[in-house]
């Protein structure tokens, strides 16, 4: 119920009340149990907090339309020139293509591994389950720069040439914990009796996985694919350490910052990435939540 509906209903209720000992209507229209005096500071804090968080980000799209190579107020005028430059830049498009390639591979790989890890975590008991889980989650807490150096050293030792492939491996490493977390919550959401029922009805473990587990885990899988793609697409540090001749988009952006006249183009690119990431993550979250509806459980 919206605020206006709520207050009009309360007002109506107050009007209908004939006892006359009610408080005046303007006080009644406040939400029940709502105390301005106590909550006003929290509200102001929240507004300030969100502004602090998002206003700097919003400068990106703002200046990407500004007709000047200097990122400074006052704004000069509206232009789409920087977006045009961006589209006409083959090196940039090449980096974008690389990022999409790596991101897509990582999304598929990490989700694949995460699904099986999640299945093992939620369905089987095995020795050392706790330590194994912690081990999979470890990349979440190890600083990127440490991980980057470590992976660089290992790649050299193994004689692997730095390339998009090494970046992909590194991104898969940090993507798996996210994929696993998304999928664990999905698999825990549905009744394991469903899998038993399938086996009881004559399907093997593999067929049960394909006919029951996979369709029910589908929203989680989609959410995981989108999430891990975004993680890979935005990641800079590991990519920076492990990139060969081919660079990903974040590295390209970083390399362009040295040239002041390229800055506006980078801003417009940043604005595009921002909007794109926002939509992907929102879509992933909506899919994940929608999936947890009446479909999720077998129990009533």
């Amino acid at each position, binding site marked *: 119920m919206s605020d206006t509906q709520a207050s009009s209903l309360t007002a109506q209720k107050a009007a209908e009340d004939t006892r006359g000992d009610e408080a005046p209507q303007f006080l009644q229209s406040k939400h029940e149990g709502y105390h301005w005096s106590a909550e006003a500071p929290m509200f102001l804090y929240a507004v300030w907090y969100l502004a602090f968080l998002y206003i700097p980000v919003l400068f990106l799209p703002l200046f990407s339309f500004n007709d000047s190579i200097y990122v400074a107020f006052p704004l000069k005028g509206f232009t789409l020139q920087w977006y045009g430059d961006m589209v006409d830049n083959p090196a940039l498009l090449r980096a974008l293509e690389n990022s999409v390639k790596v991101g897509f591979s990582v999304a598929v790989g990490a989700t694949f591994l995460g699904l099986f890890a999640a299945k093992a975590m939620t369905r089987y008991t095995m020795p050392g389950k706790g330590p194994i889980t912690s081990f999979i989650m470890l990349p979440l807490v190890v600083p990127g720069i440490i991980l980057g150096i470590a992976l660089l050293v290992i790649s050299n030792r193994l004689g692997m040439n730095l390339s998009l492939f090494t970046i992909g491996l590194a991104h898969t490493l940090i993507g798996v914990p996210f994929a696993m977390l998304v999928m664990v919550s999905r698999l825990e959401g549905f009744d394991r*009796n469903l899998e*038993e*029922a399938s086996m*009881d*009805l*004559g399907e093997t473990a593999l067929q049960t996985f394909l*006919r029951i587990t996979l369709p029910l885990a589908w929203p989680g899988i989609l959410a995981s694919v989108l999430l891990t793609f975004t993680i890979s697409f935005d990641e800079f540090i590991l990519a920076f350490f492990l990139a060969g001749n081919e660079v990903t988009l974040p590295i390209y952006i970083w390399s362009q910052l040295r040239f002041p006249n390229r800055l506006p183009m980078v801003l417009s690119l940043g604005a595009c990435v921002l909007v794109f990431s926002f939509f992907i993550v929102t879509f992933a979250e909506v899919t994940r939540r929608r999936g947890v509806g009446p*479909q999720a459980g077998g129990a*009533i």
Partner: protein
Amino acid sequence: MSREDYISIRNTSKHFGSVKAVDDISFNIGEGEFFSLLGASGCGKTTLLRMLAGFEQPTLGNIYIDGQPQAGVPPHQRPVNMVFQNYAIFPHLNVHKNIAYGMRKSGLSKAEVDRKVDEMLELIKLPGYGARGAHQLSGGQRQRIALARALIKQPKVLLLDEPLGALDKKLREQMQLELRALQRDVGITFVFVTHDQEEAMTMSDRIAVMSLGKVLQIDTPTSLYEVPQIKEVADFIGTINFFDGSIKGKEGDSTVVTAAGLGTVHSTAGGAAAPTSGDITVAIRPEKFNLSFQQPNADRNVVEGVIQAAAYLGDRSHYYVQVEGRDAPIAVAAQNAERQMQAITSESHEKVWLTWEQDFALLLTA
């Protein structure tokens, strides 16, 4: 004649760590029987059912179904199907696809499977429900569909894990009768797990009463109620009065016992198998007492007492009669065939006499 050892459970145990969920159980279930495993939660009944289904492997012993040992046979290869406690209806499939789920490997054409599914829908009285989504079903409908999904496989044995537990009382009672009628129709052996003794009594041919991983007694509902073999079973099924006693000897067909609160009791229960000496528990069901307000014309099996509490339940009344020599009053149930019984209340403290037939005084050793 159907086989009496259609399912044969032989010295079967299941240990979870140090817990013996099922502890060296052996018994047979006959072909076409409606057999219930009855017990409080944690008694091992569900574990036993899951071993029949193949979801758990026995730690010791083996289970035979239709003569075939089931050790190492995975659930999908067993000739049994299960109705789960929460029904486990596949949420992403409609009713038709749920019921047809197990038919993929049946070798039947799609048209034949469709026809069978329609037959099942008729059988469970939900014709035309095939296209419904799983989330559009009520609890009772889910239960029926779970049943159809299992029965379409024509299993040798149908396993039911408290399938009526989630339904409200009225629906549950209706489903009990339907389930029983269905079982007679299809002639499949049913193994039914429940903690509800009334449910087990209503439906079963035979009941195994379980406690702490052991089977206490296997019998027909009537026998379990009328002639329980041990105190625990007598206590678990229905209400019963226990009296501490000791055997004095034999007098013709009857065993003579002195029991606290009843005085000298003559009992013919147990026949020749009745114990002949030692301490014993005399057990009498509340409805087996006759309650009278005049001193009856009996020389044995009679005790005098005072009504301490009374509850009028319409068709019958419960009385609690205080007697000498027993701390707790004796529970007595009487049919209210005559109207003046209503007048007896807890306050009346009327003097009454209880009498009972010789074979209603059960002699229990444990």
